[in-house]
């Protein structure tokens, strides 16, 4: 049944969010630290095990794939509900910092990607 897959996905999601909230409270921070990330890791690890043990069949998995396919439409809806007007109204400083900071990080991507791929555990010296 498809709902089994959706329920399994929900369980991973909620467990991840719980972990994230717990971590947030541990650091006395109002909010959630990496709840989505933990949810993804749980889905990868538990999903793999559940599939190998036959707990989740193809039919159940299609319930998860449905939400996977809804991802782009959800992102389109998200884009349409951003406060774009405020972003534009922020003035020059907002534009310069927003664009400048982003470009700097983009420039680092090829550099960092190369560092990691050679398997050298690069220790960052701050």
């Amino acid at each position, binding site marked *: 049944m498809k709902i089994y897959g959706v329920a399994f*996905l929900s369980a991973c999601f909620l467990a991840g969010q719980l972990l994230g909230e717990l971590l947030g409270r541990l650091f006395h921070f109002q909010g959630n630290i990496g709840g989505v990330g933990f949810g993804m890791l749980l889905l990868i690890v538990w999903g793999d095990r559940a599939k190998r043990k036959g707990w989740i069949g193809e039919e159940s998995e299609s319930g998860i794939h449905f939400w996977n396919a809804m991802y782009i*439409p959800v992102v389109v809806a998200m884009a349409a509900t*951003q406060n774009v007007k405020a972003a534009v109204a922020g003035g020059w400083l907002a534009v310069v*910092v927003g664009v400048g900071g982003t470009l700097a990080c*983009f420039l680092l991507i090829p550099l960092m990607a190369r560092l990691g791929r050679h398997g050298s555990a690069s220790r960052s010296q701050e």
Partner: protein
Amino acid sequence: MGRPHGLKNEIPKAMDLLTDVFSKYDLVFAFLFVGLLMSASILLSRILFRGRIPGAAIAITLGLVMAWFGGRKGVADFPVMAGLSLLGGAMLRDFSIVSTAMGASLSEIRKSGPAGITSLFLGIITAFGIGSAIAVAMGHADPRSIATIGAGACTFIVGPVTGAALGAPSDIIALSIAIGVIKTVVVTILTPLVADRIGLDNPHTAMVYGGLIGTTSGVAAGLAATDARLVPYGALTATFYTGTACLLCPSLLYYLLTVVLPR
């Protein structure tokens, strides 16, 4: 609701009925709306751009353009479009992001984990550093304001969280949100355009990218427009970014800023 009131010659009334029904079932209308927008974008991609710009990228950009006509919640400020803020809200966004992890390769993540975590910290420090430096260059002297602007260069959540923690003035906090939203927009539009040049075509680079850029909405939209198979890897590191930055910016990075700033 019950029976139609003379639809034939009373167009305004018909419009009222339409908006009534659409805003009553706003989430369902959002499905229809996004579906139509997607199909129009894919058609545009094929005809106008010969497939060189993916349909998803066009749909996301059109979404942003439409959001400009709305207000604080983008087009969702119009009652008929209110369902879009549910469909595109944090809950369904995070839920569908998590679902992309099904089938992602654990060994790939293990292999790229260290590079991803290093990127996370490097990304936060770089965004905060560049943001603060530009703030100083443009005449800001108050360390609390500078730190809030620097935090805004991380994401639009880190800015206000940092500003509130440090007690920065409210116009600076609003500015930091604007900076974060601009970053999201820039990342969304720029990612598919520069993906080839920065080698963003494999899980390893996607994890580094997610860590360095960090804005979940931007990374999610950028990767969706580039290659949907990379989404789980980029999203995984990006989802730790905001939380980590909210910890670092008002504490360690603010302290470092006060040390570095000339008295």
